[in-house]
């Protein structure tokens, strides 16, 4: 990493901290703390969604709009199984398994048909898949208030005089640990090395004898596991509604963009800070109404900042 990129990191963190300080200024500490913890939980979900997206995008060049829909399908399955009285841990496993199978099916059978198209078209194709999933899920489970409960909901942790539910802590820890885990996986294992090679140059990697299909399938698998886990957490922490979970991909893309679809650490920091700022905007009487806008504004600013000084020239970046 170069010195400039350290500077950029520092600048980003300082800006976010300044924004949080400005929003929380003069408010009682326990209220600010409450919004920060709530924001960290939501931000972890954005970050998890973004991490899945970046791992897959780097390995296969596909920006997966269908991860939210796969998570929604998993979460609804888990809810249905719980209604039938299945042992709870099995329902959670089913949620992740369903999302994994759905994502793998697309990655193995549909995505290769589009491998030669431009990235934007590949991304739009996953949207087609997301629509199919959303249609089927919403058809099977018509609109109705539902919820998924986790045993961690009733476990409370006391942090600096604040009571935080176990689920929120779990979401936050999971996002940090998964980010670290994937970083180590990509850096230390052979599959990780192959994945980085494929991300760098697909054709050259194939010539070197790297099993492209296997590497890509593993990437789709990781994306599927993360989609299932994020779907389950989202259903518990925010809302169990197929449309809402499906279009959670849009703020996840914002988190992925803050890491330029490339850097997992930045995705984590970006996602977390988006969640916290979104939540803390509630404290501002003027901006309270538009608070879900935070991820988009932050992502757009990061993108514009990254493009500064560059000119659109030959060969291009896209």
């Amino acid at each position, binding site marked *: 990493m170069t010195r400039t990129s350290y500077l950029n990191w520092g600048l980003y963190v300082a800006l976010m901290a300044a924004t949080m300080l400005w929003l929380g200024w003069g408010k009682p500490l326990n209220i600010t703390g409450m919004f920060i913890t709530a924001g960290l939980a939501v931000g972890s979900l954005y970050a998890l969604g973004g991490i899945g997206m970046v791992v897959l995008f780097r390995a296969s060049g596909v920006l997966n709009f269908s991860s939210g829909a796969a998570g929604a399908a998993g979460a609804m399955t888990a809810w249905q199984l719980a209604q039938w009285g299945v042992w709870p841990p099995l329902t959670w496993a089913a949620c992740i398994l369903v999302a994994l199978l759905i994502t793998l099916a697309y990655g193995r059978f549909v995505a290769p048909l589009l491998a030669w198209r431009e990235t934007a078209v590949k991304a739009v194709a996953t949207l087609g898949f997301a629509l199919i999933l959303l249609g089927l899920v919403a058809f099977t489970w018509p609109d109705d208030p539902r919820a998924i409960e986790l045993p961690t909901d009733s476990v409370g942790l006391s942090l600096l005089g604040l009571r935080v539910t176990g689920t929120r802590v779990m979401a936050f820890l999971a996002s940090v640990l998964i980010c670290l885990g994937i970083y180590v996986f990509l850096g230390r294992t052979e599959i990780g090395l192959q994945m980085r090679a494929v991300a760098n140059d697909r054709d050259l990697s194939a010539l070197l004898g790297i099993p492209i299909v296997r590497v890509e399938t593993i990437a789709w698998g990781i994306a599927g596991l993360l989609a299932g886990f994020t779907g389950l957490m989202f259903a518990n922490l925010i809302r169990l509604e197929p449309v809402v979970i499906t279009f959670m991909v849009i703020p996840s893309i*914002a988190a992925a963009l803050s890491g330029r679809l490339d850097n997992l650490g930045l995705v984590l920091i970006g996602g977390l800070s988006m969640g916290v700022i979104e939540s803390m905007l509630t404290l501002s009487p003027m901006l309270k109404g*538009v608070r879900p806008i935070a991820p988009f504004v932050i992502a757009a600013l990061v993108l514009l900042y990254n493009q500064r000084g560059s000119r659109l020239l030959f060969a291009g970046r896209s």
Partner: protein
Amino acid sequence: MDRSLFHITPSGAAGLIFAALAFAVLPALAGSFWMSVFTSAACFTMAAAGVGFMYARLGMVSLTQVGLMGVGGWVALRLNYLFDLPFEANLVLAALTTMVCGWLLALPALRMRGLYLALVTLMAAGGLEIIFATFQFPNGGAGFWGVKIGSTDPFRGPLLAQTPEAFLRYVIVMTTLGFLFIEAHRRTAPGRAWALIRRSEAAAMAAGVNVTLYKTWAFGIAGLLAGASGALLAASLGLLDDGTFRSSESIMLFALAVVGGARFWLGPVIAAFLYRVLPALLSSWGVNANLAYVIFGVGLLHALITAPNGIAGQIFDATRALSAKIRGPK
């Protein structure tokens, strides 16, 4: 003036005949429910033409088109309640304001391509969605946002078209004008510049084409069409709802423009038909509305995998093959 500017191709003739038929037949056939469905489909045809044109001519993916329609609709409603201008003036001002918004959106486009450009426009759509949901659309209230609780003040439609039938005809004429506007650009200097940029930006720059100007121009045209269609939609309904302008709708409209076939005039028509008329048809047949999503999704995947030129491309290929068969071997 360039003579080829007014040359009518067979496909163009078919388009004009189609518009004339729609103008003559649709309002006479449809009942009041279908009238509103067709009117909104005609509005979305114009918006889809804008997004399809950017994709087909420049390879730029814009995922903000429906959001920009919302901007056009918002401006038209705001002006309607603020001043006593006729509808046409509101329409033009709304279209021009949205064109300026299109230019603003073009700023990042000058430095980004492909997926990144698409994602920046998606972020803009996400932002607009939340602004619309928070502040709602003006309905005659006081203040800048002009929202009041309860009944909505009347919206002044065009003087020429006071009945729903006449308004549908009005929208069809406007949409046809939108198509002709794009086609006129395609046949003059901007079109040649776009063709060169699409092939290779490097070649275009080397040939002295102002890439920045012409890309911005394309965004402006897409914005203009979105603004006009948003204003027409506002006039047809008299009020607007933020649910119409979600960012997911913008993605959907782009997807359907690809399914329809962005390179042909028929493409946006098919896109708007799928977007507005098909769900209405399905619900009138008693099919669950969620299954429309499944049909869209399957159609989208099928079109992307098997038909890069969309349904319109397949139709035109089929007619060409048919006419070759009728003429017989040479």
